[in-house]
């Protein structure tokens, strides 16, 4: 459980980036953290991970104030996955790469093996355990980054733009794994993303930031009902959501939407 209480933050002597934000993410939730470029969503996620510390207010992880902690202290509770997997690959095999975390924490080799095998299985990388990480495709490397965070068995995963730059199949593939983690293992997912379609399809809750302020905290169904003017917050309404609202039908994908349409009487054939 991660909670922010009246958190304020600014970089060095700069402009405030987070203004008095309070929100709470319970265990098992699937939250999309949204906002325009510079809205503060990445900063907020870093505050959750003790990569940054607030100027005022508190950040609590499982009820404990993390102001004196560093990210390594939280790694068992919260996993943070960065956007660029190339910047963290250290080892020569996928197995060793995922084992980095547990080994840093001085676990016994049996415990390490157990945790790594579980993490690889959860992200569909078991077959690649002996592969050299740099020969993996980009999508596989991204999943490797998630597996590496999972190896320490955190309750919560924070993912920064994890589907950016990938094609549709890879995006859906990654999201399917995350959905499985959330539904089968109860892992809390906090997804920072620009992709409205992904947020709409997979997340159940959305937190929207704008210029450092929290402007929306509610269900994705509510956010993407197709009637809100999301452009006010620097976001765009997913086209399927708009169309579904106009025709008063429900449809997550293009195909589902089309199924619900019928030709009007007298329409040109």
């Amino acid at each position, binding site marked *: 459980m991660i909670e922010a209480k009246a958190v304020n933050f600014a970089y060095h002597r700069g402009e405030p980036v987070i203004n008095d934000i309070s929100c709470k993410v319970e265990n098992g939730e699937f939250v999309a953290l949204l906002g*325009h*470029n510079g809205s503060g969503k990445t900063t907020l996620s870093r505050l959750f991970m003790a990569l940054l510390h607030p100027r005022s207010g508190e950040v609590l992880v499982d009820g404990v104030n993390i102001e004196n902690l560093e990210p390594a202290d939280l790694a068992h509770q919260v996993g943070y996955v960065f956007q660029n997997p190339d910047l963290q690959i250290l080892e020569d095999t996928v197995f060793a790469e995922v084992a980095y975390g547990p080994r840093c924490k001085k676990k016994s080799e049996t415990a390490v093996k157990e945790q790594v095998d579980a993490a690889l299985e959860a992200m569909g990388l078991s077959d690649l355990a002996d592969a050299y990480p740099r020969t993996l*495709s*980009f*999508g596989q490397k991204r999943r490797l980054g998630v597996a590496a965070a999972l190896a320490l068995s955190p309750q919560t995963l924070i993912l920064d733009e994890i589907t*950016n*730059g*990938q*094609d*549709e*199949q*890879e995006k*859906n593939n990654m999201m399917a794994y995350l959905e499985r983690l959330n539904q089968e293992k109860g892992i809390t997912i906090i997804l920072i993303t*620009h992709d409205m379609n992904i947020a709409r399809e997979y997340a159940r809750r959305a937190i929207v930031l704008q210029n450092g302020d929290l402007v929306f905290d509610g269900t994705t169904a509510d956010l993407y009902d197709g009637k809100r003017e999301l452009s006010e917050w*620097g976001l*765009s309404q997913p*086209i*399927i959501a*708009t*169309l579904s609202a*106009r*025709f*008063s*039908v429900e449809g997550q994908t*293009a*195909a589902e*939407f*089309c*199924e*619900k*349409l*019928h*030709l*009007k009487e007298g*329409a*040109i*054939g």
Partner: protein
Amino acid sequence: MNETAIRFENFYYGYINGNVVLHNVNVDIGKGSFTVISGPSGAGKTTLCKAMVGIIPYYYGGRYAGNVEVLGETTKGKRVSDLSMRVGLMLDDYESQLVSLTAGEEVAFGLLNHGFAPNEVEARTKQALADVGLPGRENYQLDELSGGQRQRLLLASVLAVHPEVLVLDEPVSAMDPDGAHALYKLLYKIYQEYQMTVVVVEHNINFLLPYATNMVVMNKGKVAAQGTFEQAAAMAYEVPELRPNLPELWQIKLNLEKRFNIKLGAWRKAEDAIKELQGKFVGGELR
């Protein structure tokens, strides 16, 4: 578009220590077109881009067959730096393509290397920076520019040599949607103003829907569809694994056209689609 800007004839390519990544590619990119190259990851799109400037196969080496022609001439035997005067290439790791310390020096670099006189270099630098929306920034250090500005700087340095063709490989993969829209809008403006031929590799075709005249869809190293945007989209729609990469509006359009045996408009904007759909369809559960 009668003339061809870039032509691939029965082109095969395999990297030195790797598999064959392009199989019997036959592509015709018309002069003055705005062509999107799309397809799943690993389809060979980046390799195709690099072949347009002769990097493949001549700079990297490797096995190849067939021919690549740029503006009527084969790329064989040509220096990569000479070809890049006519075909400007922007790779997706744009940071590593910026080599100088200030904006002015970056734009001037290619020009100086090709022997342009200093006053010509100055004039072209000024023009190129103005064209991309960075007027008067010659003396700006690179770290004074944001990510989006750096990318526009790269575009300026590519434009300064006045190429006839622009090739961009996933230019917006690291950007937020607003930044992506802004870059493509700028690109389209330059395309129209200088009557260039533009080739863009892009996963998210939604960004290019207002601009694309033609499309080439690659899949596993082969050309799966090619032609005007309408033609290529229709061809790609027939292949289930390629369908998700099409813009949603067109997935809807092609789905409905097929199902109801009707013809719908070639929508480039959401408003056009909504208008036509509301005129012809109603929503409701299947009876």
